[in-house]
């Protein structure tokens, strides 16, 4: 729940207030990146994203950073997200779903769906005898006409 309220502060562009209840008094928060007293956006030594990591990301997520502005935007986004390190989460259970207090509904093992081949295939650009058609092998990174990606060009 703490993480949610933090989000609200971040969106407002401000640094979240200290939560005194989370620490014993007189004890500076420990174990997080030493950024000094927080101001607007921490300008401290943030990580520069290496070319290898960027290439790896392009390959994994099939995106194309296109130009230096794209990479710069990524850099800023990482810096922005790094503010999360300001929060002291000692002794706090990580939350992985807003549904964590809900009951997981269990369905009976009955056949209730399927048999809609025609409808499903309608969405596909190309089909062959009721099969979807995909390129051979794995899905490749889309290349612009005769152009290498920004990263490949900058090597």
């Amino acid at each position, binding site marked *: 729940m703490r993480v949610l309220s933090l989000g609200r502060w971040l969106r407002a562009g401000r640094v979240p207030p200290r939560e005194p209840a989370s620490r014993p008094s007189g004890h500076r928060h420990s174990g997080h990146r030493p950024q000094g007293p927080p101001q607007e956006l921490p300008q401290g030594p943030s990580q520069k994203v290496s070319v290898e990591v960027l290439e790896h990301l392009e390959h994994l997520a099939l995106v194309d950073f296109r130009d230096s502005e794209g990479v710069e935007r990524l850099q800023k986004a990482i810096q922005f997200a790094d503010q999360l390190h300001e929060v002291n989460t000692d002794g706090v259970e990580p939350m992985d779903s807003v549904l964590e207090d809900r009951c997981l509904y269990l369905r009976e093992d*009955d056949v209730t769906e399927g048999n809609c081949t025609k409808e499903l295939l309608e969405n596909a650009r190309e089909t062959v005898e009721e099969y979807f058609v995909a390129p051979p092998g794995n899905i490749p990174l889309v290349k612009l006409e005769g152009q290498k990606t920004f990263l490949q060009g900058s090597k």
Partner: protein
Amino acid sequence: MAAVLAMVARGCGGVWRRLRQRCAVRPGSGPFPRGERAVACNARGGMMSAGKSGLTPWIPVVGLEIHAQISSNSKLFSGSQVQFAAPPNSLVSFFDASLPGTLPVLNRRCVEAAVMTGLALNCHINKKSLFDRKHYFYADLPAGYQITQQRVPIAVNGSLSYSLCIDNKMSQMVTKTVRIKQIQLEQDSGKSLHDDARSQTLVDLNRAGVGLMELVMEPDMCCGEEAAAAVRELQLILQTLGSSQAVMAEGQLRVDANVSVHHPGEPYGVRTEVKNINSIRFLAKAVDYEIQRQIEELGNGGTISNETRAFDSKLGCTVPMRDKEGKQDYRFMPEPNLPPLILYDAKSLPANMNHQQVINIDWIRERLPDLPSVKREKLVEQYGILPEHSFTLLNEDGLPEFFENVVKQTQMKPKKVIGWILNDLLSYLKQHSLTVKESPVSSFLLADLLNLLEKKEISSTAAKQVLAELWKGKGKTPLETVKEQKLELLQDQKELEQICQAVIDGQENEVMAIKAGNQKVLNKLIGLVQKKTQGRSNPVLVKQLLEKKLSE
């Protein structure tokens, strides 16, 4: 390959062993590969040296990752049907096709199947387990991720016990254990059909979303034989539980092997993953080949790369797989659409919850059927048969029931009946590739035949002849066959005595030899009596009569 095997034989100094069949069953039956093994495991499970003698021995390490398709009517997170071989894309719901706006809804039956399997494998069942997304791009994974349980799976820390014959004698069966690291629930992907001619892949999503149990085993095994035995036992357990039909040929049980070798005392070597193994027999072959390949490669000064290789069953070797370069980064994240899966037991049962929404581990545990190991013990205890017999019985679907039915209907002792079942019936079935259900000789017919034998109305040679006739399935009873072929034992003692006397009278030299102390010659006389009676004399009785006459 043969040269390599020969090298191993020389280097091992005779430790090389040839796999034999157990319980005198004909070749081709049983779970283990016929003929030669590439690697010999000693009694402690370590490996013998390979290559030229004088080199330090290699220890192979084998770990298995097994995917078992859950036997259920509908899929893990959607209500579309689970069925093998249906028109393409006919068993696909909107969720399976990953259309926007669809959400996963967990199938209760799949959870129960996983709990049953976890309990049968002595696992700790996690009362709270979580679902995660495993991301990768492939045409048969429309969502771009698979829902699995990476952080906290449903069951952990179990064990699987299996049996092996450690030498050629059938009597030496040893029990081994492999630790189960975890069992997790996950989705199956669709099927890709590669059409290289037209440079395209055809995708069928019928299988997408079917529930799988992934069983991760610790690398406690050392050769193909152990891996095959472990998987065979797991298959029997899953089939007994009903949680999976585990038919490898239909893709309901998929095994990937992780293989590495290292010198004793040194850290584990780089492992390769071997995929595309379609039967238990091929599993043993693939593992042994890969061990051998790695040893050779390292012996020649090469290195092993952490790669994925495919087993080519035609060539009997492993080849590097294309499309799998480098280590995959799956970017695991919690599945945001599914709360944690909570299971209960008798103590923690919530008071006012809908029964249908509650899974009680203790309730499931109480209703587990007898596992194969328990069934085997019961057979040994109840019928006095050997453990190896019991092992072979359970290895064949329907055979234990057949055996028990015969025992019920005959006076012959179970210890004798088992011989007829395993040596005669089973080898017939194997020769003609029939299952027990398809046997032309029913348990009733066999029991009838064995009764004739037990009552000493026919000899055991005659019984085998009758069985051969029954096998043709012409509908005749054993008694009819006996009468037709005139196989009844001579019951007239006087007539038998006369024949014995005639033989004695006609074989003076032999009689003298016997009287002089050479007992072996008696067998010749018995043989002559058999000839005269056309095999219709009881050899034991003949021997008695001859001995009596000769001592007069």
